[in-house]
Every structure is written in structure tokens, then in C-alpha cells.
């Protein structure tokens, strides 16, 4: 629907219908002190050509990722999005709809969201998924609260290398609540210390939150972690990169109770870091405590298949402060984008994108292993990113950037004991040439 200003004729007609003479009369109830006296101080309007010039000059101040050979990951990943995806989601019915939940006029979108939910269940090996949440970090926090409601216990164990921003957001969600958080650090090999985890689990532990692949890119022993938790009557929440599920076993088949994470890798561009979406999926018996919108499939009164929001009695407009969450919306467009992306790639295409991401990362790892002056501190399996260290890492990263290469995420930012560590990522977009260029440039910088 286009937005067109009211013309003078339209304004006159509306004023007459309402029964006032001027628009100012509509504000007569407001105190004079807050009313605008003079006009707004704006510069003279520019022509379309001049506007275009000015805005382009401003935009040029940004360095877009496309201009760099980037190995940046750490939660947001640069995968290839086929043109068909953006074409399909640009349909105004998808693009401009706002909270499109009314079944009488939103069957198309509700069906699309239902299919998104179905895809998430397929990928995660879970029974139910919600219609999406705002981002990975908040989906993890909500998953933890969900698990606590189900277990009716007060203690949370956070195990291993969780994305630092997820930890911060979880902290925000927990502030003011009388809940105990126990951190189980990673072992020297970067994976969760299973002995320490077992020691931390007690009769009061309602949930264990962990991430796999973890923040350092390493794949955790999900089966063992789930088993330890189950033996202790503790629920597991696993945060994951959904792209990794194109290659790795579905967490639902490994004993995990709730899966969550950032959905951006599924067809989302990097876009200055957002918007993305959070996904949340669980086993059937957790359904009643799930936050967020859920679309269900049913029949209308004529017996035809229809879609609508369901299990609304979990939500705040019915339960108020006893609701599972105060979220009353979803990231429809981003979630539908994920569904479109998966359907365009298909099962084999998705597996292929994941496998190639991993293969490229393996190649980078192999080449860095041969590099004098670079160490690879962890040897466990990784999916698409891993840690390497070098003396004066910040300086090296800056010099790489001067040569048009974003070497990776500097871990010293978040981890005091990793002042010389970098997290580097490869997606299926990386070519062998780009990786070789990185290696050769790094070699020149290190060895002159």
C-alpha cells in the first residue's frame, strides 16, 4: 500500500466532517507552552539528484563487508543468499505486514510461519517450535526461564563457552529474580569440563545452558552433557548455529530438551548486525511452558485446512503476569525468510552449504597450522570457525585490514586470558583463492 499525503481538498473535507475549521483547532486542548510557535528549522529541500548525491556520500563513509575478504563469524555468518529468496520475501504481503496474526485475513502468512516452525523442528529434531523470537540471545534467556518453569527449580548451570552477549542478555533477564547461576568453565581443551559439570549439578539445578558449536567454534559432547543432566533431573538448553544442523546430528536426537539460537545464518544478510531472529524448539511435553507466538494447523467450520495462533492461554494478554513471557510478537519476515531460504536450497543444498563452510574452515586451519608464528590452541572438532593465536594479535589484525582482509573476531575483547587470540570463520562463500590470499598476506606481515 503506497503512502500518499492528504491534499488540501481532502483536509478540508475531513475538517468539515469532524466539525472544526482548522487543523490547529484539533490541538486546542493542549497547553500553549508545548505547542510549536515558529516553523521547524530545516534546510531548504534538495532536488532528487542532489539528495541522491548527498546520501550516497554519506553511505560511502561505511565500509561494507563486500569490500573486504572477511573471516568474521562469532554468531553472525556471511552465507550466500540466492536471489530467489529476496525476491520472494519482497512480496508486499510478507514485507509490509505488521503482526499478521488474524486468521480471517492472514492465512498466507500464518501458513508460511507454520512451515517455518516445521523446518525448525526438522533441523533440531524437536516436536514443537514457536513462531520465532527477536534474536538468539533473548531466545536463550527465554529458554532458560522456560526450563525453570517446567522443572520448578531455582538453579541454573551455564556450562562452557557461551557467546558473551548471550551471557549478558541472560543476566539482564535474571536481574531482580531470586535465581542462582553457577558457571562451569571450559576445560583446557576448550570443551565443557564434564567432571566439573557433574559436580555442579545438584538436586536444585533446574536447567543447564550450553552452546554447541561453542563460542570458540568447538563442537561439544552433546550426548554426554544431556545424559549427565538427565541423570540429575536437570533440563538441557542448547544454543546452536542452525547452519551447523545441516551437517551435525539434530540435538533432539541426542537428548537435548530445548534448542535455541540465532536464525540469521538461514537466509539473513549481515545488515550491520540485525535484524535477525531467535528460534526456540522443544519436546512436546514442554509445549505448555513455551514462550512466544505459536501457529497451529486446524480446520475451519467448513472443514477446510486453516492456520491460526494457538495455545494463546500461555500469553500475557490472557495470563498477564503469569504468562510464559511478555513477548507478543515474532520476527515474521526474518523467520519466513529462513523458511524460503531452506526451501530454495532444499535438503541437499543446505547440507552442501554447511559441508562447504566446514571444509573451507578446515582448509584455513590446515594452512594456519603450517604458519610460523601462529599457534592453534585447540584440536577438537569444529564446524565453521576456530581459534588461532599470534603475538600482538590486535596489531596483526589491523595490518590485515589495511590490506583489505578482516582476519577474524578479536577474542581479547571478551576474554582476559586470550589477549592474542582470534576467532576466524569460513562460510561456503569463501573461495580457495580468498583463503590463500589471507594466508599469503599474513605470512608477509609476520615474516616480512
Amino acid at each position, binding site marked *: 500500500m503506497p503512502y500518499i499525503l492528504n491534499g488540501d481538498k481532502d483536509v478540508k473535507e475531513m475538517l468539515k466532517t469532524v466539525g472544526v475549521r482548522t487543523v490547529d483547532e484539533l490541538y486546542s486542548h493542549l497547553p500553549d507552552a508545548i505547542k510549536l510557535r515558529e516553523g521547524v528549522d530545516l534546510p531548504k529541500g534538495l532536488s532528487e539528484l542532489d539528495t541522491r548525491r548527498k546520501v550516497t556520500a554519506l553511505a560511502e563513509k561505511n565500509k561494507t563487508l563486500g569490500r573486504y575478504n572477511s573471516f568474521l563469524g562469532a554468531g553472525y555468518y556471511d552465507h550466500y543468499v540466492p536471489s530467489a529468496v529476496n525476491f520472494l520475501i519482497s512480496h508486499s504481503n510478507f514485507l509490509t505486514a505488521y503482526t499478521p496474526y488474524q486468521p480471517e485475513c492472514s492465512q498466507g502468512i500464518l501458513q508460511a510461519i507454520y512451515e517455518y516452525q516445521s523446518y525448525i523442528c526438522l533441523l533440531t529434531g524437536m516436536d514443537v517450535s514457536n513462531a520465532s523470537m527477536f534474536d538468539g540471545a533473548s531466545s536463550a534467556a527465554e529458554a532458560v526461564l522456560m526450563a525453570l518453569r517446567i522443572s*520448578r527449580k531455582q538453579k541454573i548451570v551455564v556450562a562452557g563457552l557461551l557467546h558473551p552477549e548471550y551471557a549478558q542478555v541472560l543476566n539482564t533477564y535474571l536481574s531482580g529474580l531470586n535465581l542462582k547461576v553457577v558457571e562451569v568453565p571450559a576445560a583446557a581443551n576448550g570443551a565443557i569440563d564434564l567432571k566439573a559439570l557433574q559436580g555442579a549439578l545438584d538436586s536444585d539445578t533446574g536447567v543447564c545452558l550450553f552452546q554447541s558449536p561453542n563460542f570458540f567454534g568447538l563442537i561439544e559432547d552433546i550426548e554426554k552433557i544431556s545424559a549427565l543432566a538427565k541423570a540429575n533431573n536437570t533440563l538441557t538448553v542448547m544454543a546452536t548455529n542452525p547452519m551447523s544442523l545441516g551437517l551435525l546430528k539434530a540435538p533432539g536426537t541426542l537428548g537435548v530438551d530445548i534448542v535455541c539460537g540465532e536464525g540469521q545464518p538461514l537466509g539473513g544478510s549481515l545488515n550491520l548486525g540485525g535484524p535477525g531472529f531467535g528460534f526456540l524448539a522443544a519436546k512436546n511435553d514442554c509445549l*505448555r511452558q513455551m514462550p512466544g507466538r505459536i501457529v497451529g494447523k486446524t480446520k475451519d467450520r467448513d472443514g477446510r485446512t486453516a492456520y491460526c495462533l494457538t495455545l494463546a*492461554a500461555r500469553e500475557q494478554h*490472557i*495470563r498477564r503476569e*503469569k504468562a510464559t513471557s511478555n513477548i507478543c510478537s515474532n520476527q515474521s519476515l526474518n523467520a519466513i525468510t529462513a523458511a524460503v531460504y531452506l526451501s530454495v536450497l532444499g535438503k541437499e543444498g543446505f547440507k552442501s552449504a554447511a559441508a562447504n563452510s566446514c571444509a573451507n574452515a578446515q582448509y584455513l586451519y590446515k594452512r594456519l597450522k603450517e604458519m610460523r608464528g601462529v599457534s592453534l590452541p585447540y584440536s577438537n572438532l569444529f564446524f565453521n570457525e576456530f581459534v588461532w593465536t599470534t603475538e600482538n594479535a590486535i596489531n596483526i589484525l589491523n595490518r590485515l585490514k589495511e590490506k583489505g582482509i578482516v582476519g577474524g573476531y578479536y577474542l581479547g575483547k571478551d576474554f582476559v586470558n586470550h589477549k592474542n587470540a582470534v576467532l576466524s570463520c569460513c562460510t561456503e562463500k569463501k573461495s580457495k583463492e580468498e583463503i590463500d590470499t589471507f594466508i599469503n598476506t599474513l605470512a608477509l606481515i609476520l615474516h616480512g
Partner: protein
Amino acid sequence: MAELKFSKTHEWVRVEGNAAVIGITDHAQKELGDIVFVELPRVGEKVKKDGRFGTVESTKAASELYSPLSGETIGANSDLAKAPQLVNESPLDKGWMIKIKIADLGDLKDLMDEAAYNSFIASEKH
């Protein structure tokens, strides 16, 4: 059937020795409409007189369940998980919700008998 006692929040109590079986009344289930889910306490959980012991969800609302007596939960109707409609079909019998060990039998005097409850709901209508 032993005589039932009623609370102002539309729960009924059937005393069995020093235990009480609790559910919601026919009036309550009618007001709620089709019941789709009942959330009940676990065995061992304590309940307080006039305190919330669970929730009953219909398609249009979620209502709190209040215990007419204080005590400890010794049973919860597991049939309601698969068949919540039992509360609509048989609110005083098959749709029972919890059984508690009564903490203070004296609390029973604060409850209404059937006649008083029927007058109460008649006066509630406007």
C-alpha cells in the same frame, strides 16, 4: 456420596477422613467453557487455604484454582492431562483435581454447604 462443601471461588471439597478431594463446581465449568488444560501441583506440594494451587485453561481464558483448605497434596488427577474435558463432563466426580491431607479440619467451617452455595451463585448473577 459424602456431603460437599463449597468455596466462594467455586471449588468443592469432599472430606474423606483427614483427607479432602477438591475440584471445581458445575457452575464454574459452565462459565469457563471447553476446558483444554489443567495445571495441578505435584504430590508433596503444600497448598494454603485461599492460595492458588493450579490453573485451569479454557479456549478463552486461564483461571486460577484456589484451595479451600490448607494441606499437603497427596494426589492429583492424572486423567486430566489426556482428558481435560472430564472437568466439563463430570466436574464433581471424574473431573476431580487434587486430594490433600487436611492441615486444619477447623477450616471447613468457613465453607458453604450446597444450599448456601446455590444461593450464593444465584445472587452473583446480575
